[in-house]
């Protein structure tokens, strides 16, 4: 299936915060209460539409345990977006955000869009981290923020899609060099071969996905 752009995402955060469940909910629209834990990395992909354009999201889901960091760092390379996930029912997963953020910023390109996600919003009675705290952290570090529930699917679509919107806007503004794949963005085959080098700040490029 052809697409206008391909964005590479990574999902990071402590073990057990629901990274794999978020991915499964987004790609397969289901919630799996019991599943094998992630060892190393897993992948998922899905098409979305933004501004009339087909965009393929290629998502890398990583193991959360500290021991795996030396390996997961190599996945950061060339990601356009990152979902940084914590569990609203476990304070420690929120406390570790700074370390994750430093890690992500150090090993990825500086323009990477980071979405902070407080997952398990369905477990309101066990909440340990207030929504305001997540918002404040996001404000302070220049992230987008959302609370989600991989179980009920609340905000899951939005989390992935809003991140893509932000990346898309950055492309429109010319912030991303889309000809450099190290930025986690690839121009799809949907663009005709005669027009592979798109203008970086193409204000008129928002019309029609088939060809420009």
């Amino acid at each position, binding site marked *: *299936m052809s697409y206008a752009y391909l964005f590479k995402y990574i999902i990071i955060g402590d*073990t*057990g915060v629901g990274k794999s469940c978020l*991915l*499964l909910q987004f*790609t*397969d*629209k*289901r*919630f*799996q*209460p*019991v*599943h*094998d*834990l992630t*060892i*190393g*990395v*897993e*992948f*998922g*992909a*899905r*098409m*979305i*539409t*933004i*501004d009339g354009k*087909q965009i*393929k999201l*290629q998502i890398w889901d990583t*193991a959360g*345990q*500290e*021991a*795996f960091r*030396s*390996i997961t760092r*190599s*996945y950061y390379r060339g990601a356009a977006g990152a979902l940084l996930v914590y569990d609203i029912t476990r304070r420690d997963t929120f406390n570790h955000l700074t370390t994750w953020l430093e890690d992500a910023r150090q090993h990825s390109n500086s323009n990477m869009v980071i979405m902070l996600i407080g997952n398990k919003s369905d477990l309101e009675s066990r909440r340990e981290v207030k929504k305001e705290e997540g918002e404040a952290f996001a404000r302070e570090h220049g992230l987008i923020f959302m609370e989600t529930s991989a*179980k*009920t*699917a609340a905000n899951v*679509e939005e989390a992935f*899609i809003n991140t893509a*919107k932000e990346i898309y806007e950055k492309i429109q503004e010319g912030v991303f060099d889309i000809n450099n794949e190290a930025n986690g963005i690839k121009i799809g085959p949907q663009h005709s071969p005669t027009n592979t080098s798109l203008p970086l700040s193409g204000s008129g490029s928002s019309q029609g996905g088939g060809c420009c």
Partner: protein
Amino acid sequence: MSANNDGFSRSSSCSRTRPSTPTSSTSSVDSSSTRPEVNGAVYSELHKQCDRYGFFVEDNESKTKKDPRDAQLSVDVILNREKKWLHMCNNWDKFMTKKWRKIRDRCRKGIPNSVRGRAWFYLCAGFKQKARHPDLYQLLDSQIGDEKINDEIRKDLNRQFPSHEMFAENNGFGQQDLFHILKAFSIIKPEIGYCQGQAPLASVLLMHMPAEDAFWCLVQICDHYIPGYFSPGLEAIQIHGAMLNGFLKRFHPPIYRLLKKQNIDPVLYMTEWFMCLFSRTLLWPSVLRVWDMFFCEGISVIFKVAIILIGSVLGDSEERKKCSTMYETLHLLRNIPVKYMSEEYLIDKVVTFELSNRELQKEHNLQVMKRKKEKEKRQKEEQKRATKN
């Protein structure tokens, strides 16, 4: 369009526990479509039927599907093999010192299910450790351990083979035993603590033997078969990844070139294979046969399986052409077609594949040297940059 036929669906190594529901893989930002239906149904695991290995039948039909070879083994053959294994176990030291090849050949033929646990326990010399330290496990078990590590272990208990009857029940016997041996391990090996890769290994062991024996097997595996796999930094896994790459260069040059061109770091596809000794990848009868050989011959078996699988999925130039980007290639490597993972296809190939320990050692030394040089180079560059600034 089906969500599953072109790499747009989630590709998961554990898809066997996730029956896929094809759904539309396109959504629109502006669409006001209703929320996807949520499948939050809780399994009624305990009422499900199990196959001969203890996996729930519905979830695992493709995984443990009766292998044609199973049918070939008559009861007489099985009984005969059991007798031979019992005889070996009763005369273990003699066989180990004088007839090791006999043991190896019998492991290659497959250990009968009834004696498998005992055979593994003997092969890795877990039984000797247990005899040397008869009270140690009980002692470790009675200790509280590090609560932080215990919490980490607890979080993973219901994420190990959830489709196996032993581990399906929350806080059931299987999960309790799993907790006990992982906790005991973290106490005896504080430099490792608990690494998530250990839990699947411990689970497979528990399917075949009591907790104390499983504990000693786990210790032996971590100390002697895959040392360094669970140490901070996971250096050993990365070295084995580089070694695997080296073997691909030798055995499958076109595949090596493809992976190199697409800049695919081996850890992206081999971490789970090696760390879990293929227990989460292959069909179950193959897992057991691979483990039978692994306990006798060591890590070379895992390398062989990996090289054969990679050669099977990417050996054909047409298949390689389909892998136009890193993603398609990784997708294929992480979702190996079932036909390549069956006992019938795989095991004979592993047995006849030549890869000696000397070759392994040579490749190991080569890769360690390479990494050392790269590290030195990086350090020099960093120093240069630091002095410039």
